[in-house]
């Protein structure tokens, strides 16, 4: 399975390019799914079709979906609340609702949901290619960072948990199995790594994160940036590239969109064209190892499968 991530800030044409790319390769490959993770859902506009949280088949080889991240977050928290209510029903002093409100707005909750969405889609067997239209750059970078960060934390917590289990074992050797009474229920506290729920969860999570980290850095994961020939855009692209290399992710292609191609430019935009040229030159120098594809500023934005296919054939291959 090949996976494509299209990064870029709002307004550069990221969604259009991603959609176009998806259409293009759906003709070459067997089955393609285009996923919009961006809360500002423009994918439906690009395809000129109403899209939803459910996967919609557009053609034999092409499907698309707009993920509702907010809804996902709510679902996760509800599931957590349900799980916790069952185990914590007797901790009446612990007012769960209040704490879930905090969690709902905690930093990282969006990234978590996006990561879960990515996990979910890459497991789908019926597609051999997935194209992701990503959320705003900041979130996406943090999503890519999450496996490494999670591993750091998980390793630390595993070490600490081991120490807890080790001390419990010592007390067990003397006093026998430890039974704690929490409110009316008796809970057996185990000292065995295999029996400890928390340890198991930590280990499970660790392997998942490791898988994800390997997935993001693999050859079959292609990360592209869509940007414009402007000075600020160049700086941002540089930053993205640096962040990505921190997580051992290679930037494959830079799609330079909305390039002004004008044979006889009017006075008003001559300055802009000059800036464009300089950016093009600098980009060539700074990003030697990366492919750069130019897409001209089109008269009207492509809409619908046919126009997207044309865009692909003309400029994206």
């Amino acid at each position: 399975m090949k996976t494509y991530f299209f990064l870029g800030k709002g307004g550069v044409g990221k969604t259009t390019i991603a959609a176009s790319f998806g259409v293009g390769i759906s003709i070459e490959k067997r089955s393609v799914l285009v996923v919009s993770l961006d809360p500002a859902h423009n994918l439906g506009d690009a395809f000129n079709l109403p899209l939803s949280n459910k996967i919609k088949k557009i053609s034999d080889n092409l499907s698309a979906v707009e993920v509702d991240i907010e809804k996902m977050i709510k679902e996760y928290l509800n599931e957590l609340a349900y799980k916790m209510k069952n185990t914590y029903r007797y901790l009446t002093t612990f007012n769960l609702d209040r704490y879930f409100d905090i969690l709902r707005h905690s930093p990282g909750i969006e990234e978590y949901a996006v990561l879960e969405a990515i996990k979910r889609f890459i497991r789908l067997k019926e597609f051999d290619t997935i194209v992701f239209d990503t959320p705003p750059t900041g979130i996406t970078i943090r999503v890519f960072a999450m496996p490494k960060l999670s591993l750091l934390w998980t390793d630390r917590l595993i070490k600490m948990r081991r120490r807890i289990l080790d001390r419990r074992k010592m007390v067990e050797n003397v006093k026998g199995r430890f039974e704690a009474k929490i409110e009316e229920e008796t809970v057996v506290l185990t000292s065995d790594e295999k029996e400890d729920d928390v340890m198991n969860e930590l280990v499970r999570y660790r392997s998942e994160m490791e898988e994800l980290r390997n997935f993001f850095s693999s050859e079959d994961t292609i990360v592209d940036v869509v940007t414009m020939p402007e000075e600020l855009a160049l700086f941002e692209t540089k930053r993205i590239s640096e962040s990505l290399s921190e997580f051992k992710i290679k930037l494959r292609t830079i799609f330079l969109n909305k390039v002004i191609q004008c044979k006889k430019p009017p006075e008003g935009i001559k300055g802009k064209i000059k800036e464009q040229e300089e950016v093009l030159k600098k980009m060539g120098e700074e990003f030697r190892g990366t492919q750069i594809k130019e897409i001209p500023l089109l008269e009207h934005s492509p809409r619908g499968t046919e126009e997207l296919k044309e865009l692909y054939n003309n400029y994206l291959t």
Partner: protein
Amino acid sequence: MTALLAIIGGAIYIIGYMVYGKRLEKEVVKADPNRPTPAVKLRDNVDYMPANKFVLYGHHFASIAGAGPIVGPALAVVWGWLPSILWIWFGNLFIGSVHDYLALMASVRYDGKSVQWISGKLMTPKTKYAFELFVYFALLLVIAAFMNVFGGLAAADPKIATASILFIIVAMIEGYIMYRTKMSFSAASIIGVILLVLAIVLGFQFPFIKIANIKTWYVIQFVYVIIAASLPVWILLQPRDYLNAYILWFGLIIGAIAALIAFRGFTWPAFTVFSPNLISGQPSPFWPTVPLIIACGALSGFHSIVASGTSSKQLDNELSGLLVGYGGMFTEGFLSTIVVLSIAAFGMTVLKEAGGDMAKLASPALIGKYGAGQIGATVGKVGIFTHSFGKLVNVIGIPEKLGVTFGGLWVSAFVLTTLDTSNRLARFAWGEIWEPVKKTSEGFYKFIANKWVGSIIAAALGMLIVWGGTLGSLWPGFAGANQMLASIAMITAAVWVRNVQKAKKAWQYAVLIPALFLWITVTVALIWYLFVAVPAIKAATTKYPVAIFTIIMIILNFILIGDFFSAFRKGPKPEAEVK
């Protein structure tokens, strides 16, 4: 005589318990078997868990008994055995045990909060901070004084030195088998006790650690403390703590049995002089300085920490408190009684055999003048106990020299444990003291509150203070700090009894008068110590730190009494509730 005094001592404690103790329970504490204790009310099986009262008594006693009830009385015999024993009996009965019991019960009434916390509530919050600041200094003095005790024992007697080192190894082995293997608790315990006996016997037979220089022992202890206090507790501290309890009970029981069947007369004078040369070699008047020598055994401030720190959270019923708090302290008093008895009966013989100048010990007055010096020069200030104890248990068939080694290990095992725990606590208190700095200079705070830095500083300061000092000059510093802690607790108790308990006037005074007597005695004693004993200390590295601590203690003592009077004058609150 030994039997007689042992019996009288036992009787005084038992009668005191039945008569005075029970009245305290009824009139002052107003113990109510139907009022749930925090162990029951707040039970969480984490900190709060009701324990069988005998179990708690045993545990509480093992926690409060250390080297203190042995070393203090051993030093005090220079006044003669009678004044010493009277202070151990009646100081304990009217002050010490009352202190322990009230600290325990007050804590029980405040949901297991510590006496320091209660003092903050009943008097002023700055009392609480003063308390914490003060505890740090007290801990440094503990480290210094105890380093001297062990150093003296180890330097004088290779058998004790060897047995002590072997015991450390035994404790580590015990730690491993008990906590790391699946061996049953009983089996592991039995092995531990056997190894312990082996350590004593081997130390006795093959005393290969022959280091006679006490200063070398200070350095060894310095290194030991830093390493020991940084180890996880299961490796050394916990198993040693556990095995110490066996040593304690065994020593107490055979000491008592031997005392009862020894039927020996006393060769030591009942009374020497009022002011024998004792503290820093200066003439030390019995009043007010006896609390600077006999602390634990008669009255100990550190007990209030134990009572309100853990024991109060495990008391199953208010009526059990008397056995645990009052009874525990009495048992310690009984232990100190045995110590005095053994020296009273055998001390003279010990000194003679050790080559003491009998001409200087020919009369009570002479003993007053030269006794401490002679003891120090021959068997050592703690040695007078270990050797007398050896002779005492010889009566029931234990070889004398083995008994001496046992006695020495008894003291040193507790000393080494106390050094370990004091260092850990000092590290913690150190971090707390520097808290205010956190806001202004975080980098500095991070450095100063680092675990290693705190540990090394505490051990180094302790070693610095002990370096040129003698037990006669250092012990009173430690005891003074201890008694001051007791003052704070006792005064807090007095305020509690009046303002919260609203006991009858007569009983308020029963607590207030000992509290004030204690305060006055300790203050006068500390002032005496500062102006008479401290200047006589030769080593500057000992003299100046001790002087500074003493001044701080005296100042804190006055702040305390000021707070106390204003709280006392405020009188009973209409509704004294714990939130």
